[in-house]
Structure formats: structure tokens, C-alpha cells
């Protein structure tokens, strides 16, 4: 018997996985290799780059088994030295695209590498740092070229490479090479001949990177940049299964962000084949050896093609394509690619099904299928595919992709096993179709199933009858799983009706979130990420552009109408026309961030897809669907499909080539070239932001800083303010603040020494005078800060008569043509403020501030709108004379900072600093000279420095105001007093100095006056003469007020008379002198002599007792209020020694009186009243004077 196996040979490519290192020198692995469209695309990209000016970096992401490693081998061979391998590779390429071969050869010639090939660092990564992998690759590339690592005469980086290799491979403590070493080696290689680095299994590096700290990210970034930036032909290709993020799922945020940055340096290439490409592979693999069969196969194919076309299946309707897949049944060929992608390892699974030797594969089935000489050709149908994938779980069929549906279908068919041949064949076909597709033409419809079995109608009816299948009439689809009573189609149609009137842009806005798009080319060239926010609009709309301080750099309007009308910008967006720039392009007519509109040629597909998604969304939330899981699942599936169709419609509708692109302005707009990817956005960004500075620091040059970035910027701003004159702002180490400094201030030439070796200053970007090397100038040119700086200076210059709000400055800098990122603006503005510190006054909440301080800067960064600045130019004429006189009078050093001789601000700041901390008493007392009072008023009311200096203060001091005139001192003469030596305004300066001295010193003076009063009242000259004796009295005073007074007197911990008196005065007033009002002062003045008199008596009493017997006594304060309310107080005492005698006498007395008046209590009262009367009544005063045992106290104000 002749079997299929006799006429068929199944090629075995992909039968084993390729290994870059193992297979690179062999020709054989390329033997069965088919250059797929994807592979060709990558080769073309690399070739194009090699023909261009620079290198490139690509990250190829594709699933297991998609042939990435083979692609690596293809690249390796094609760019290798002449020989069989290169011949093979080039021939394969030529098969796929004839031009590809020529391009590769041209690229080799361009780099003079045709005779030796380029350096190819092919390497497979392990779970290890990238540095180790790259080193291995580089070493290999060199060895493959020279047979060994040659000496340094031939290869400059020879010793570096050898050393690195040795360190990395030693058994004990191996050390990975550093980034700079590897980059140097790579540079050295690439300067001889191009370097191609291919890292297979790069995911393992990424996994390792997720685990630990390393500088890997930086290495790849440097390598990728080495190729993209400055023209060295370095090409980096990484091959991995998943995207970067997926590998790093467990890494911390910072590492993920780092890697995201690296990924930004790579062009991403998704390495999956389309179904048609996969079928081309199938065709390639199945070769019919017997040409006599050709005719029969073709006839077979034509019949099936017709049936397929009739069933509406357009994916596989060309007879030759069907024929090429024989003996696979067209339905099998139709489902296989999707099946392999979803449930297997792509091509690897495909080929194991085709060529594997286990049972169930095409190769083994072919041996059992008889091939008759005539009649219909046998074929391998969907049931075989089903068996291989579902039943036997053939090699490479993974379980990962298996959804709930897989399990359910497999389960139901297992329940139904033992069905007769026809039924089994049909139900398996239905199952298979159910698995890979649910709608569209490739579904288990009656007409498709007729292809599997012409008599399927009856078979299906039987299966349906037995409940093994359901037919869903509205979808014309058979299913092996549950149906539902909810008519999803009807509901969907109703939902469609509901949204029929809604304009497309609204429908889309609700169902499709467009991520912001990076203007890639512009961003890469300008060291900044320019982001365009996207939204859907109708062409008739009037657009308000983004706010200047919005985080996005522009907006992309996806127009949903095609009538040829672009949206228009609102009037507000149009610049008034006063702003002129020398650069000759058109965008400076706009004041706002760029708004790009993309108008598609065609929106029908998009409209359909969007409304379908919207309608299904609606259906999904309908109550009957919510409660029916089958319906829910069906809607869910439809929705998933609709979403993917919407996705597809979006990318084709708004693909650059299918749209016309316009940058909106006030007239017809500026047309943009479609180009590739985000090219139109890059063009718009070029036009909008020609004067943006290039600040090569990703942490700073962005719209929103990370918290780490914000901290570093805060440190930088603080250092700018506090250490502006120091080399590198006195920043230590290499923290992020240093990187920010270098990027924004150092390279730009904004912070540099005033003169060689001199102190550093901020100023207009400029090279250091001593080394105007071309390199430094180039760098400054590159950073391109001059325009921005100039704009800030002009804004400052214009702020002479009215203040400039800092927020307005921010807005200007964020808008075209500057487009400075929000992270950078505060740094530049602060530098400019510092550069002009001598002329720019800062106001916060409308109030003049002494200057920039770190805390003020923190607030300014957050709320620029709370700040204003005003420019005070250096004055001339009489005002200059006055300012000079004041500066001289105050001893302000003219050489400080950037300030030139005596300007308005430095004098004002001096005055403000001196009077900032006036005591509360000084602020409100009237015990000041008239001049000082007037100066105090002038200072409190002043808001503007110049008004204060030239108008209010002269007026307060009785001088004439100083007019802004260029005539020197003419009118100053009239105010000149005799003896004012220095100049016409020295009298003014002297008067002001005196008043300021009075204001700042009066409070202290007052306390000293009180001290003098106290000492004289105490009849002493020095405070020790008072405090010393007071110590001895402490234990003898019981009255709390008197006691604290005496304690205060006795306390001599104070430095000087002032402090001592201040504490006494505080005790007397219950408030510190600096907090007094004039009433407090009056009260103290009244109390002080009274207390002192009491103290003096106490002292005398004490002295007398001491003299008499040296015995201690107790003093007591007695106060009596007479009926008129007048109060008399007296300090009375009893010596310890006398106490018992007195007490017994008093007891006797009281006992006697008690008898007389009736009760002890009344006796007490009577005695007290009479004693008080005698002792304290005014008549008794004279008597008291002579009694050393009592002292009179009268408290003034109570």
C-alpha cells in the first residue's frame, strides 16, 4: 500500500532549539531555516542602521519557539566573514527579499568589513549580571576575529580585555568588569569595525537584575547610547521571551523605573508571526515529493477554496495556499497557527505536530493513511489536530494558555467519547473551532462544517438533539458548551440604537482610553521626554489648549470626523503678537503648548468597532445579563473580540500614513509630515520648542519629580542659595543633586568663577574666562540655556514699574518656544534670581522679603504664584548720592556678592534686617524721640524699598524727599546741615542711623534706667550690694509677692545689670520688658519704689536683729482695707527667739478677751481689728516708721 508517508517529506526545522554559541560556527542550523517576515524585518533594521550614520539598539520580544535564536544565528552568519555560512544566510535572505542581500553586502562594504565580517558578540545570557554576559560576548567576538586576544599593537583594549576576563573568570572572588571598562572595550572594537552584540535569553539577565543591586541598567544604557548618539557603529540586539516589565515584576519600583529608562533606549520589536506567515512555514515544511500528485492536489484545493469562499472564510481562500498545506485539511491549516500561539510554544509546537516522531503527529499519521491512485485525496483533518492537542497533550503543548473554555470543551468531549466516526469527526471540529474563534467567519458555522463533512447537517442535528451541541442561531454557530436564553444579539442591537445619535468622539471617549504618546525622535534628540496627551474630538470643535503648567507638553487631537475640517484654536490661545523672536519660524505666533490634530482618511471601521464596544458594555450591565453567567460570558467574549477589533481599528485609522497631520495655529495650521510612529509629534515639538534647554538629567528634566528627585532638587536649591560662591556649590559626593548641578548649572555655564580662581557666581551662560576652550563653549552651546536665560532677564528688566509674578515667569518658561520642564524651571529661576540678587526684590504674599532663603525657596517651588519680584536698577544722580551715603553710614561692604556700590536693595535689606526683631514694647511705646517714632511709622507702613528710602524716611526725619533725578545733589544741598562732612546726604544718613540705634537700643536702655533707679532707691551703687543682702532675707519673707521680689533681687546668675534688672522687672510686671506696654512700664515705675522701701525696711530689720542677737525671724505681710477701699500693707515680723513668749502672752490676752466678748472667734476678730487699726491706720504710720519690726508696703496698681 502506498501511504502518504511515501510521497511526503516533512522538514524538521525548529525541531530543536538553536543555541547561539553552539551553532554559530555551523552551517547546518540554517539549513532548514525559513526567513520569516519578522526575521527579515529585524535584519533590515540592523542593515539600515549599518548603512546609516550610527548604531542602534533593539529588543526583540517573542514567545518560546518563535525562532529568535535562529534569527540571532542568521544575523551572525550574514554579517560574518565570507564563507559557506555567509553564503547560506545571504541566499536565504535573497529568497525572502532580493534587496536584503544586497543591502547587507553594501553595509559590510561601507564599513570595509566585507572581507573579514564585522565583530559579532553572540552570547547567551545566564542568570547573571549583564556585565558578565557582555564581557563574554566581547571576548568571543575578538577571539573569533583574531583566533585569540591579540597584543595591544593590534587591538588597543587588549590588556583591558585580558585583565577583565581574568578577573571575571578566576575561581576565587571573581569580579565583574565595570561599565566604563566594557564601554571602553566596545568603543575600541567598534573603532576598527562595527560591533554587533546579540544577547539571547536576555530575560535571565533581567531576572538577575531584579534580584540585586548592580550597575547593569547603566551599562546597557551606555551601550545603546554608544550606538545611537555619537556615531560609533555598535549594534545591540537583545532577545527575550517577555517584556522587560514582566521579568521585573518582583523588583522594587526604583529598579523597574531604571529598567524602563533602559528600555526607552531600545527599539521594541515584537517577534510573533501572523497566521498567514505561520501557514507559509507549514507550506515550507510539508514537501510533496511526487510531482504526479500535483494535479490532484490542485483540484482538491480549488474545490475547498470555493467552499471556503462560500462560507465567507477569506483567511485561506487562495487555492495555491491551500494546496501548499496538503495533506493538512484547510480547516486544520486554518486553526493551527492560532492554536499553537495560544496553547503551545508557537513554531516549536507547530513543528512538533508536523514533524514529531511520536504518535498523532502529521509525520506518524502519514504512515497509516493510504493513498489511492485516484478519487478524492485523503487529508489530515481538524479531528487529528484536536487529538494531538487536546487528548494526547502533544509535545510542547503548554497548559499555561488553557482557559476555562479549554477545560470545559475537553471535559464535554470526554463525556461524549465513543461516538461513531462521523460524529466524532464533526464534534471535534466544532470543538476546535470553538477553541480558537468565536465569531468572524472562522467559526463553527454550518457552512464551515460542511467542509469537514459534506453530510454534516444530519450529524449536527443528531448531536444537537442529544444535547451534545447547541446551535446559536443568531450567531450561526455550533457550540459544544452551554447556550443561554438571553438573546444577546437583540440586546446588543437595542444598545446600538441607543447610542446611534451619539457623536463618535463621545462614544470613543467613553470606551477607549488613549495613553499619552511620547514624541520619540524629538525626545531622544533633546534629552527630554515630550509627552502628548490624546483625546478624541470632532472637527468642528473649538479647542482650548493645555495650560502652560500642565504636565503634558502638548495635545494630540484624534479627529473623528473626516469632512476635511480641523478643529480651531480658541482666541485665547493666540498670541497677541508682541512677542517677537529672531528665529524665523511660525510658531511663535502661538502662546500655548502645541496642539496636533490627526484627521483620518476613513473612520467607518473605527465607528463600527467603537459602537460595538459601547453597545456591549451597555449590554454587560443589563440586569438579565448580569444574572446569567452564560450570557455574561458570551457578552464578555464578544466584548473581548470587539475590543481587539477596536484596537486594530484604532491603530489602522490613526496610523501615521492614514491620517493628515496638522499643528493647529490661528490660521490654516501647519501641515506635518506623516513619517513613522510619532514622527508628526516630534515635528510639532521641534517647531514648538526650538529654544528648550537640553538638560541631560532625567531625574530633573521632567514634569513631575519623584520624591527622591524632589529631595535632590531641594538640596541643590539650598546649596545654590547658601553656597553660591563655592566651587560646585560645595556639594560633596556624587549624589543626584550633584548630577542635577552638573546638568543644569555647570555644563550650561550658568555657574562659573567670576574670574580665574575667583569665587563662583551665577550669570548668563558663559564659559570660564580663563578657558574659553572650544569644548566648554560647545557644551554651553549644547545645553542651549542662553535663550531661556535671556527671556528671564528681559522679564526682570520689564518688572521695573510693576511687579512680576513668579508664576507668570513659570508660565512663560513652560510655553513655546522654551518649553522648560517643570522640574528644571525652579533651578533656572533661582539661578537668575541669585545672579541679580542685588537688583531684584522678592515679595512673598505681597510683602518685601530680605532675600532668598532655603525655606522661602521651598515655598516658591510649591506656590510660585505667591511670589513677585521687582527690579531695582542701580540709581543715579541724587538718589545714588543718598544711597552711597547710607551705605557708607551703615558700613555696608560694597564688594559683597554681585552688588556694586550701594544699591537700593542692599541698603533696604540692611535696615529691614536691623529692625526686623524690634521688641513688642518698642513697636508700640510712645517713649521714643519724635524722629524715632516717625522712622518707626515709616518702616511699618513701607511696602516698596525705593519709596521708603527716598520718600518716607527723609520725610520722617525732616529732610526733603530725594527725587529720581540725574542732577547730582542740587536739591540735596538745602537739607545739608553744617558739619555733615561726607557729602550732601550724610546728614540724612546720620539722622537715620541715630534713629535706628534708638529703636533697636531703647528697650535695653530702659531696663538700665530702671536699674539705676533701683540702685539709687536702695542707696547702693552696685547690684551685688543689693543682691548679696537679699540672699540673707529669702527665708524670712512669707508674702509671696514680696518673696519673689526678694528672690529676684537675690538672684545673681545674670551676666550683667541689664539681665538682672530685666528679671526683677519681669517679676514686678508679670511680663518681660520687651513685651510691655507703656501701662506696664508705668505700673513698674510705681511699684518699684514701694517694694524697694519694703525691702529696705526688711533689710534694716534683719540687720538690727542680727546686731542684737543674730537670731532669725519670720516676716509676714499684713494688709488692711479700710471702709473707703484704701489698702495698707505692712511687713511685720517676730523673731524666732521671742516667739514662744509672745505666743503665751497672746494666748492669755485672747483668753481674757474671749471671756469678755463671748467666744474665742470673736476675740480673735476683735484683737485683729484693733491691732490693725492701731498699726496700720494712717495715724499709726508715723509710729510704724520707728518700728524696725514692721515695714510698710503699698502696691500701686492692682
Amino acid at each position, binding site marked *: 500500500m502506498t501511504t502518504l508517508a511515501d510521497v511526503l517529506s516533512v522538514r524538521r526545522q525548529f525541531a530543536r532549539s538553536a543555541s547561539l554559541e553552539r551553532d554559530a560556527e555551523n552551517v547546518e542550523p540554517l539549513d532548514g531555516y525559513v526567513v520569516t517576515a519578522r526575521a527579515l524585518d529585524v535584519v533590515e533594521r540592523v542593515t539600515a542602521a549599518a548603512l546609516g550614520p550610527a548604531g542602534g539598539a533593539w529588543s526583540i520580544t517573542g514567545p518560546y519557539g518563535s525562532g529568535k535564536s535562529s534569527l540571532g544565528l542568521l544575523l551572525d552568519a550574514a554579517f560574518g566573514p565570507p564563507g559557506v555560512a555567509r553564503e547560506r544566510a545571504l541566499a536565504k535572505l535573497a529568497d525572502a527579499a532580493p534587496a536584503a542581500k544586497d543591502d547587507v553586502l553594501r553595509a559590510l562594504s561601507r564599513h570595509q568589513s566585507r572581507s573579514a565580517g564585522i565583530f559579532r558578540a553572540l552570547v547567551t545570557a545566564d542568570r547573571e549580571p549583564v556585565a558578565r554576559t557582555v564581557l563574554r560576548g566581547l571576548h568571543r567576538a575578538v577571539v573569533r576575529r583574531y583566533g585569540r586576544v591579540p597584543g595591544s599593537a593590534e587591538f588597543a583594549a587588549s590588556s583591558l580585555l585580558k585583565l577583565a576576563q581574568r578577573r571575571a573568570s578566576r575561581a576565587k572572588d571573581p569580579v565583574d568588569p565595570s561599565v566604563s571598562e566594557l564601554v571602553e572595550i566596545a568603543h575600541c572594537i567598534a573603532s576598527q569595525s562595527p560591533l554587533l552584540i546579540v544577547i539571547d535569553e536576555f530575560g535571565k539577565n533581567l531576572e538577575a537584575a531584579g534580584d540585586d543591586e548592580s550597575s547593569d541598567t547603566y551599562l546597557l544604557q551606555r551601550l545603546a547610547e554608544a550606538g545611537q548618539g555619537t556615531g560609533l557603529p555598535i549594534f545591540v540586539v537583545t532577545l527575550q521571551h517577555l517584556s522587560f516589565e514582566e521579568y521585573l515584576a518582583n523588583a522594587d519600583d526604583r529598579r523597574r523605573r531604571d529598567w524602563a529608562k533602559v528600555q526607552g533606549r531600545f527599539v521594541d520589536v515584537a517577534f510573533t508571526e501572523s497566521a498567514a506567515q505561520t501557514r507559509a512555514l507549514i507550506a515550507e515544511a510539508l514537501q510533496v515529493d511526487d510531482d504526479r500528485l500535483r494535479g490532484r492536489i490542485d483540484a482538491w484545493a480549488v474545490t475547498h477554496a470555493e467552499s471556503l469562499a462560500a462560507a465567507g472564510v477569506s483567511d485561506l481562500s487562495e487555492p495555491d495556499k491551500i494546496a501548499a498545506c496538503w495533506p493538512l485539511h484547510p480547516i486544520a491549516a486554518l486553526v493551527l497557527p492560532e492554536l499553537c500561539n495560544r496553547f503551545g510554544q508557537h513554531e516549536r509546537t507547530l513543528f512538533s505536530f508536523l514533524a514529531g516522531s511520536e504518535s498523532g503527529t502529521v509525520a506518524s499519521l502519514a504512515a497509516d493513511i493510504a493513498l489511492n491512485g485516484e478519487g478524492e485525496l485523503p487529508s489530515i483533518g481538524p479531528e487529528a489536530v484536536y487529538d494531538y492537542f487536546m487528548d494526547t497533550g502533544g509535545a510542547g503543548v503548554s497548559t499555561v494558555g488553557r482557559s476555562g473554555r479549554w477545560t470545559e470543551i475537553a471535559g464535554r468531549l470526554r463525556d461524549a467519547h465513543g461516538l461513531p466516526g462521523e460524529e466524532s469527526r464533526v464534534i471535534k471540529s466544532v470543538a476546535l473551532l470553538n477553541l480558537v474563534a468565536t465569531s468572524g467567519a472562522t467559526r463553527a458555522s454550518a457552512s464551515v462544517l460542511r467542509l469537514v463533512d459534506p453530510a454534516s447537517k444530519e450529524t449536527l442535528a443528531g448531536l444537537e438533539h442529544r444535547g451534545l451541541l447547541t446551535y446559536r442561531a443568531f450567531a450561526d454557530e455550533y457550540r459544544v458548551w452551554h447556550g443561554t436564553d438571553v438573546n444577546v444579539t437583540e440586546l446588543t442591537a437595542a444598545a446600538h440604537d441607543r447610542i446611534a445619535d451619539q457623536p463618535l468622539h463621545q462614544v470613543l471617549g467613553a470606551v477607549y482610553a488613549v495613553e499619552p504618546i511620547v514624541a520619540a525622535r524629538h525626545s531622544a534628540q533633546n534629552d527630554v521626554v515630550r509627552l502628548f496627551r490624546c483625546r478624541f474630538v470632532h472637527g468642528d470643535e473649538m479647542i482650548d489648549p493645555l495650560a502652560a503648567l500642565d504636565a503634558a507638553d502638548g495635545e494630540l487631537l484624534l479627529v473623528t470626523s473626516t469632512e476635511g475640517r480641523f478643529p480651531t484654536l480658541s482666541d485665547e490661545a493666540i498670541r497677541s503678537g508682541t512677542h517677537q523672536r529672531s528665529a524665523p519660524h511660525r510658531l511663535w505666533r502661538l502662546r500655548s503648548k502645541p496642539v496636533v490634530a490627526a484627521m483620518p482618511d476613513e473612520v467607518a471601521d473605527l465607528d463600527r468597532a467603537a459602537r460595538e464596544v459601547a453597545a456591549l458594555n451597555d449590554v454587560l450591565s443589563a440586569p438579565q445579563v448580569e444574572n446569567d453567567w452564560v450570557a455574561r460570558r458570551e457578552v464578555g467574549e464578544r466584548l473581548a473580540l470587539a475590543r481587539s477589533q477596536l484596537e486594530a481599528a484604532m491603530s489602522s485609522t490613526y496610523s501615521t500614513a492614514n491620517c493628515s497631520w496638522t499643528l493647529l495655529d490661528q490660521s490654516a495650521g501647519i501641515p506635518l509630515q506623516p513619517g513613522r510612529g510619532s514622527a508628526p509629534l516630534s515635528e510639532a515639538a521641534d517647531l514648538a520648542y526650538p529654544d528648550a534647554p537640553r538638560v541631560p538629567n532625567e531625574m530633573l528634566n521632567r514634569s513631575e519629580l519623584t520624591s527622591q528627585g524632589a529631595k535632590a532638587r531641594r538640596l541643590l536649591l539650598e546649596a545654590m542659595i547658601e553656597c553660591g560662591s563655592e566651587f560646585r556649590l560645595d556639594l560633596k559626593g556624587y549624589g543626584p543633586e550633584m548630577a542635577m548641578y552638573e546638568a543644569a548649572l555647570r555644563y550650561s555655564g550658568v555657574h562659573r568663577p567670576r574670574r580665574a580662581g575667583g569665587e563662583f557666581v551665577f550669570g548668563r551662560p558663559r564659559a570660564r574666562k580663563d578657558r574659553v576652550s572650544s569644548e566648554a563653549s560647545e557644551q554651553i552651546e549644547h545645553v542651549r540655556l542662553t535663550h531661556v536665560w535671556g527671556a528671564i532677564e528681559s522679564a526682570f528688566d520689564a518688572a521695573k514699574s510693576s511687579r512680576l509674578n513668579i508664576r507668570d515667569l513659570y508660565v512663560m518658561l513652560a510655553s513655546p518656544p522654551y518649553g522648560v520642564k517643570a522640574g528644571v524651571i525652579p533651578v533656572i529661576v533661582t539661578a537668575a534670581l541669585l545672579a541679580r540678587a542685588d537688583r531684584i526684590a522678592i515679595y512673598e504674599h505681597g510683602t518685601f522679603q530680605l532675600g532668598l532663603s532655603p*525655606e522661602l525657596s521651598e515655598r516658591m517651588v510649591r506656590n510660585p504664584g*505667591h511670589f513677585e519680584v521687582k527690579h531695582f536698577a542701580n540709581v543715579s544722580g541724587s538718589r545714588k548720592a543718598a544711597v552711597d551715603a547710607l551705605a557708607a553710614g551703615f558700613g555696608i561692604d560694597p564688594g559683597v556678592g554681585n552688588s556694586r556700590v550701594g544699591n537700593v536693595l542692599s541698603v533696604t535689606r540692611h535696615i529691614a534686617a536691623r529692625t526686623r526683631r524690634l521688641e513688642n514694647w518698642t513697636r508700640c511705646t510712645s517713649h521714643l524721640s519724635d524722629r524715632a517714632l516717625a522712622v518707626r511709622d515709616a518702616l511699618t507702613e513701607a511696602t516698596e524699598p525705593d519709596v521708603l528710602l527716598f520718600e518716607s524716611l527723609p520725610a520722617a526725619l525732616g529732610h526733603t524727599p530725594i527725587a529720581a533725578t540725574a542732577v547730582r545733589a542740587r536739591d540735596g544741598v538745602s537739607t545739608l546741615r553744617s558739619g555733615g562732612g561726607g557729602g550732601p546726604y550724610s546728614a540724612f544718613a546720620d539722622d537715620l542711623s541715630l534713629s535706628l540705634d534708638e529703636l533697636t537700643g531703647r528697650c535695653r536702655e530702659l531696663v538700665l534706667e530702671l536699674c539705676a533707679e533701683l540702685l539709687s532707691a536702695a542707696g547702693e551703687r552696685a547690684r551685688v550690694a543689693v543682691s548679696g543682702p537679699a540672699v540673707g532675707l529669702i527665708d524670712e519673707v512669707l508674702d509671696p509677692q514680696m518673696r519673689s521680689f526678694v528672690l529676684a533681687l537675690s538672684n545673681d546668675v*545674670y*551676666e550683667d545689670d541689664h539681665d538682672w534688672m530685666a528679671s526683677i522687672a519681669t517679676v514686678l510686671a508679670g511680663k518681660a520688658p520687651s513685651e510691655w506696654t507703656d501701662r506696664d512700664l508705668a505700673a513698674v515705675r510705681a511699684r518699684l519704689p514701694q517694694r524697694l522701701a519694703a525691702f529696705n525696711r526688711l533689710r534694716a530689720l534683719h540687720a538690727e536683729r542680727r546686731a542684737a542677737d543674730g537670731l532669725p525671724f519670720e516676716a509676714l505681710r499684713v494688709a488692711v482695707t479700710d471702709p473707703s477701699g484704701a489698702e495698707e500693707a505692712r511687713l511685720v515680723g517676730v523673731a524666732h527667739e521671742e516667739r514662744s513668749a509672745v505666743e503665751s502672752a497672746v494666748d492669755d490676752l485672747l483668753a481674757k478677751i474671749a471671756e469678755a466678748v463671748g467666744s474665742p472667734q470673736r476675740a480673735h476678730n476683735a484683737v485683729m481689728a484693733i491691732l490693725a487699726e492701731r498699726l496700720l491706720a494712717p495715724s499709726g504710720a508715723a509710729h510704724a516708721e520707728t518700728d524696725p519690726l514692721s515695714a510698710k508696703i503699698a502696691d500701686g496698681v492692682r
Partner: protein
Amino acid sequence: MTSSVRHICGISGGKDSSALALYLRDRVPEMEYFFCDTGAELPETYEFLTRLEVILGKPIVRLNSERGFDHWFEVFRGALPSPQMRWCTKVMKIKPIEAWIGDKPAISYVAIRADEANRKGYISTKPNIESRFPFVEDGVDHEGVMKILDDAGIGLPAYYDWRTRSGCYFCFYQRKAEWIGLADRHPELFERAVAIEQKVLLDAGVDGNADFGDRAMAGRQYTWSGGETLVQLRDRRTEILDRHADALARAKTARRNIPLIEVLADAFDDDDSAEQCTVCAL
């Protein structure tokens, strides 16, 4: 500076820490006194501090004076502190204290009284700081504290008439009756607190007030005092004062012969929380 160990004593503006400062004036001559200035203390507190400073004859170092509450309110754009998010104490007190102390060994004197030995003050967790409790060690109780203050002639801070603690005028640990006290004594500060509650900083911004309403947690109505806005609270003035009077009476009968300050401190209205700011109130 002979010894390398610093001696430090924090002043809160309340009676205990002031008494401790006075108590230690002669005992620890090298003492450094400090006060964390939130820029939002009561005027009475500032006045009292100067009083204390003069009597101590030594400066009380004002920590944090550059970055007071208004500064942070602006920097955080209207995010308000609360018991759950108590950034106020952290950024205005703890951080400045720790920065000021540095890493040198230091002895910190804490004003916990002998009669409240189980209370917690701010006790630093930094290893170089050793805490001492002189009042506990020497058995100085409430009466002792009052005597120290009387002898020094310094008296009490004037806010004790209506409030039991020092601290920010808007402190969210205030009792409702204390809010009413603020409204009575310092209507302008009460207005400021009302504005802040609505995320508005009065007299800030270039033209008038700075409104952060659309910034931090926009749309969320914050209230300083549980369950109601300050305006609502003020409208309940009589009710709150009545309740407070009741609570006072209750506290008085519960404990006899105790000074008014203590009664105030014990008198909780039912809807007041008993928590407080341990760094701020000692």
C-alpha cells in the same frame, strides 16, 4: 564647654517644663533650653516664653523658627495635620529637635512630675540621648511645681485661664470648650483656624488669601474638631459651655481640694477625645 555631653531641656510653654527649667537653673549651669516654634503658638505662650527667658537669664533656643506651620501648609499645599496624619509634630518638632541635638551624647531633662510618673513625654529614641526625670527623682509634684513658679515670680502662662495646654492655636487635640475659649479670646486666630479648615491661608497669596481647596485631597471636608466644622462648633457655643460646666462640676466632686488647673484638665466633655500631643504639651 568643658564637657562634651550636652544637657538639654525642652520648654513647651506649659507650667511643668517651665518649672523644670527654673528648678535646674542653678543645678545644671550648662543647660541648653529649647523650644520648638511652630509659628502658631498662642500669643500667651510667646509672652510667657520671653518672661521665662528673662528670668532664666539665658536664651531659649527657638528651633524650627524658619519653617513654621504656615510654611508647611503652603509647601504641602493645604494638606492638614490630624491625629491620623500628624505631620505637624514630625516636621515641626521631632525632626528639628533631632537635627539640633545631632549625634553627640546628650542628656535630656523631661518634665514629668512625681505624681504622674507613668505619663509619657517625648522621649527620644536616638541612642545618643539619655533621658532624666528630675521631678520624679526628687519627688516634685504638682504643688512643688507651683511653688517653683511662685518663687520665681513668673506665675502661669495666661492661657491657663481657658486652655489646659500649650501648642498650636488650632491643635486638633483641643477640646470643644477650648475652641470656644479661642473664639472668645482670640477671635482673629479662630478665624484663621476656620479658614485653614477650608484649606485657605488668610492674607497669603499675592492678592488676599491663598486657597488650596483644589489641591490636597480636594473635595474632602476636613474638620479640626470631630464631627463638625468650626463654624458649626461655634454656633453650639452655649451648649458646649454648659456641658463643660457640668463636666467641671463632676470632676470637682470626684476629687476634692484640687486646684482649678487640674479640674480643667480632668473635665472631659463626652465628645472630646482624651488624646493629646505628648511632644507639644509637656
